[in-house]
C-alpha cells in the first residue's frame, strides 16, 4: 500500500502509519464508490434520455422516474456496503450499474422502435428484473457475512448446480426457445436455471479443488512429461464433462457447455498448477465438440455460418448466417463513433435486445462505445482477479477467479460469436442483455465478488506489508 498524502510528516514508525492507512481506507473506498456510482447513474440516465430523444424526439419523464427508482436501489446497495462490507472493492458496483443501465437504455430503445409497451415491453421487464436482481444481491451480501461458509456446502452446491442444469429437461416445465431447451416455465414466468447453476458449480469447484488439489496435483504417473491423474481422481471431472456434453446434446446449447467446461478447466489449473488438466480438459471438450459438429446439425450449421457467412446459400439457409451478417452490417454502419443512441436501425438484426445487444451497441455507440464497454468488463474482471492474487484463503481466491472467469467466458463467447472470432453460440452478455435469470446470476456474482474483496482488505497482512 502506498502512503497517502496525509502521511507526509514522516514521523512515527512504519507500523503506526500503516495502521492509520487501514483505518482511514474504508470510508475513502466507499466515497470513491459513491462518486463512481453517481457517474454510472448519470451515464445510464443520460443514455435513456438520449434514446427517448433519438427515437421519439421527446422526453418521457415516467420512464426516467422508473430508472431513477433503480438508481435509488443501487445507492441503497452502496449504503448497505458501508455497513456490511466496508472494505469491498469500490469499482464493482459502479461498473455493474453502468453496464446494467446501458443495457436497459438499449433494450428500451428497441422497445420504442418496435412500439412495445407495458409488460410486453422488454425494457420494463428488464427494469423489474434489475430491481429483483439487486435486492437478491443485497440479500447475498447481508446473509453471507463470511464466504468460507460456502466451502462447507460444496457438495450441496454441486447437487444444486446439476439439478438446476438438468431441470429444463424435465417434461412439463421445460421450455424450448430458439431451438435451445434452457428454460423452465411456471405459469407465465420463465427462468433459465442454468444461469444460477454456474454460480453453484463455481462454488463447488472452488470447495472441491481446495481439498482435492494435493491428490490431483501430486499423485499419478508421469507420461511424456505430463503428470497424469489417477483414475479415481478423474471422477468429478468426468461427471462435469458428462453434464456439459448432456447440455450440449440435449439442451442444444454450445455456449453454456463451453462455459462450464472452460470454468472447470481454469479452476483446476489454477488450483493444481498442472498443465495436464488443461490439456485433458481441452482435449475432451474439443473431441466432444468435433463429434458434435459432425453429428448435430445445429452445431454444423453454426460452423458453416461462422466460416462462410457471406455465402448466399448459408445466408439464406434456415438457421444460417442471416443474423450474424446483419449484425456485422449494423456494426459497420456504426463505424468509429456510431450513429448515436436511437439513430441507427438495430432492430433489423434478430434478437437485437438480447444475444445481439453488443451489435446494437456497436451500431449506435460505435467502436468507441464498444471499447468502453469491453474496457468496463476488463476492469470488472481485473478486480475479480485481484482478489485471486491478494486473497488470503485459497477457497476465496479460487472462487473469485472462477466467478471472474465466468464473466470473461461469457463476454468472449458472445462478443466473439457476434464478431466472428468463434462460432456463434447463445450466451448472454453480462448485465447488458435482456434476460432476467442472467441478470440475477450476474448480480449475485457481483455481490459475491464484493463480499470476497471485503475479506481481502481486512487481512492484517496488508498492514505489515508496506
Amino acid at each position, binding site marked *: 500500500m502506498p502512503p497517502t498524502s496525509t502521511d507526509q510528516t514522516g514521523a512515527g514508525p512504519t507500523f503506526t502509519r500503516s495502521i492509520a492507512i487501514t483505518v482511514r481506507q474504508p470510508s475513502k473506498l466507499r466515497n470513491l464508490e459513491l462518486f463512481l456510482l453517481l457517474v454510472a447513474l448519470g451515464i445510464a440516465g443520460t443514455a435513456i434520455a438520449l434514446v427517448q430523444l433519438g427515437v421519439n424526439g421527446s422526453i418521457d419523464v415516467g420512464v426516467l422516474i422508473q430508472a431513477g427508482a433503480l438508481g435509488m436501489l443501487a445507492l441503497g446497495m452502496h449504503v448497505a456496503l458501508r455497513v456490511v462490507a466496508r472494505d469491498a472493492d469500490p469499482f464493482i458496483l459502479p461498473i455493474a450499474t453502468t453496464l446494467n443501465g446501458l443495457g436497459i437504455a438499449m433494450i428500451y430503445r428497441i422497445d420504442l422502435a418496435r412500439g412495445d409497451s407495458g409488460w410486453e415491453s422488454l425494457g420494463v421487464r428488464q427494469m423489474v428484473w434489475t430491481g429483483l436482481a439487486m435486492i437478491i444481491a443485497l440479500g447475498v451480501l447481508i446473509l453471507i457475512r463470511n464466504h468460507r461458509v460456502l466451502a462447507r456446502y460444496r457438495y450441496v452446491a454441486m447437487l444444486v448446480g446439476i439439478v438446476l442444469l438438468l431441470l429444463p429437461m424435465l417434461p412439463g416445465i421445460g421450455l424450448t426457445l430458439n431451438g435451445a431447451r434452457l428454460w423452465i416455465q411456471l405459469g407465465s414466468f420463465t427462468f433459465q436455471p442454468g444461469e444460477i447453476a454456474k454460480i453453484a458449480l463455481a462454488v463447488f469447484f472452488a470447495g472441491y479443488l481446495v481439498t482435492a488439489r494435493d491428490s490431483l496435483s501430486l499423485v499419478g504417473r508421469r507420461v511424456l512429461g505430463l503428470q497424469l491423474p489417477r483414475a479415481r481422481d478423474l471422477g468429478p471431472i468426468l461427471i462435469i464433462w458428462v453434464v456439459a456434453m448432456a447440455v450440449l446434446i440435449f439442451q442444444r446449447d454450445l455456449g453454456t457447455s463451453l462455459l462450464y467446461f472452460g470454468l472447470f478447466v481454469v479452476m483446476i489449473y489454477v488450483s493444481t498448477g498442472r498443465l495436464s488438466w488443461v490439456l485433458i480438459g481441452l482435449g475432451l471438450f474439443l473431441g466432444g465438440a468435433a463429434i458434435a459438429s459432425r453429428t448435430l446439425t445445429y452445431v454444423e450449421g453454426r460452423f458453416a455460418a461462422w466460416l462462410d457467412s457471406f455465402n448466399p446459400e448459408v445466408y439464406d439457409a434456415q438457421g444460417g448466417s442471416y443474423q450474424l451478417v446483419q449484425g456485422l452490417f449494423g456494426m*459497420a454502419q456504426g463505424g468509429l463513433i456510431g450513429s448515436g443512441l436511437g439513430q441507427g436501425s438495430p432492430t433489423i438484426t434478430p434478437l437485437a435486445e438480447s444475444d445481439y445487444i453488443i451489435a446494437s451497441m456497436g451500431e449506435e455507440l460505435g467502436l468507441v462505445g464498444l471499447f468502453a464497454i469491453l474496457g468496463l468488463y476488463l476492469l470488472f474482471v481485473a478486480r475479480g482477479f485481484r482478489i485471486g*492474487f491478494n486473497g488470503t484463503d485459497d477457497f476465496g481466491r479460487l472462487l473469485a477467479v472462477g466467478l471472474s*472467469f465466468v464473466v470473461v467466458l461469457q463476454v468472449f463467447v458472445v462478443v466473439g460469436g457476434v464478431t466472428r472470432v468463434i462460432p456463434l453460440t447463445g450466451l448472454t452478455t453480462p448485465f447488458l442483455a435482456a434476460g432476467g435469470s442472467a441478470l440475477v446470476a450476474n448480480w449475485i456474482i457481483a455481490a459475491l465478488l464484493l463480499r470476497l474483496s471485503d475479506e481481502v482488505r481486512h487481512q492484517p497482512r496488508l498492514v505489515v506489508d508496506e
Partner: protein
Amino acid sequence: MNKELRRVSIVALAMFLALFVSTSVIQVFAVDELRADGRNARTLYESYSAERGPILVDGTPIAESVPVDDEYEFLRTYTQPELYAAITGYFTLNQGNTGIEGELNDFLSGTANEQFLDQLGALVTGQNPRGAAVELTVDPVIQQAAWDALGAQQGSVVVLEPATGRILAMVSKPTYDPNRLAAHDTQAVLAAYEELINNPDDPLVNRAIAGDLYFPGSVFKVLMAATAIDSGEFTPESTFPNPPRLQLPNSSSEIGNSEGGTCGGGETVSIADALRLSCNIPFAELGLALGEDTISEYAEAFGFGTRVEIPMRAAASTFPEGLDDAQLMLSSFGQYDVRVTPLQIAMISAAIANGGNLMQPTLVERIIAPDLSIVREDDPVLFSQPISRETAATMTRLMTEGVANGAASNASIEGVAVAGKTGTAENGGDAPYTLWFTGFAPADDPQVAIAVVVEDGGGFGQSAFGNRVAAPIAKQVLEAVLNR
C-alpha cells in the same frame, strides 16, 4: 497459485484483445466492404435518410424532404403536387424516380461527383449528408396560368423563353399526385402505382416531352413555310394552284382544305395566304416541290430526330423517311406519319422568335449546394440555327398576320402583336382531332414562345378546330405573361 493466476490473467487479457481487434476490424477496416454489400438494408436506409435537396421554383420549394419519425427519417413532400408533377416527377423508395427527381438524382441526393468535397467535409464534421437544391427556370405565374388555361382538357402547354431556351412553364394533363408515390408505406405506394399505370389516360406520362407523340397537323406548316422561304427557292409570294380538291398521285384518295372549297379566291394562292388561312392543298404542292430531303434537313435542324435533354430526355419528334409522293404531300401539312412533342412545336416558334437561333431548352436554372455555393449553372446554349434572321423576320410577319387576320384569330390580344399558328390534326377514322396552337408574343420583341395541344378534340370530337379550343388557351397564357 499466483503463477497459474498470472497465466490465466494473460489468457483472459488475450481473449479481450481478440475482441478489441475483431470489433476494430468490423467497425473500421471492413466498413466499406460491409456497407457495399447488396444485402445491407442499412445502406439503403441511409441513402434515403440523407436530406434530399429541394426542387425550387422562384426560390420556393415545390419538392422538399420533410423530417418524419420513421427509419427513412425524411419524407419527400410536394407542396403543389399536381401543378408540377410533369416537371418534378416522383421520388419513391424503391420503385424508381422520374422527372427532375430521376434525372438529377445524383445532385439532389448529394452523391454527384461535383459534390464529392462537400461529402468529405460532412464526413469529417459529422454532419448529416445533404443534397443540393435544384432551382428551376419555371415561372410560377406562367405555370399557374398554363395550368388554369388548360382547365379540364387533356393535353399539354409548353412555354419557352426564346432568347435563352429556359422553360417557363410545362403542364401536362391529366396528371397525378407524386406524394402518393413518395410515401413510405410500400403497399400503398404499389397500389397507387398500379392504379396510375393502368389508368387509360396515362396520367404518369409527361405529354410535353413523351408519350405516344402527336400528329402536328397544321402547326407543321410553320416549319414548311420557313423551309420554303429559307431554302431560297420560294418567297412568301410564291404561288401554287388553288383547286378545291386534289387527288393524290397514284392514289384514289383526295385531299381538301379544312374549310372545304379553295384557299381564298383566285386561281392560285401564295404561301403567305396559305399559311394565314391554313390551307392543306397548297402546302401539299409545296412539299412535293421541296422534296423529302430538304424538309427532313430543316426538320432535323429544328430538333426533329434529337432526344432533347431538358435534362429529362424528350422523345424524338419524327419526320418520316422514304415517302412516295402521296405520303410526302400528306406529311407536308403534318399528317401521315409526322410525330411531334409539344416541346418540339414550341422550339419551332422559339427559333423564329429568336431570329433563327434555336436555344437549347432547359428546366434547370442552377444547382445550389447546401452551403449555398453554386454546383452548376449553365449559360444559355445554342441548339442550332435552322433558319436565317431574314427568314425568321418574314415568318414573324406571316404568323402575325395569321393571328390578326387569319385562322388563328382567337389568340389575338388587344394592343399586342401575337404571332401564331393553329393546328387541327386528324387521328384517322372517327377519332377526335388533336387541337394545336403555337406562336410567340409580342411579335416585335418576343418574350415567350408557346405550344398548346389539346387531345380528344377538346371534347368536341371532330367538330372543333385549333382556333376554337387551343388558341384561347394560348391567349390566356400569353396575357398572363404580358401582365407579369
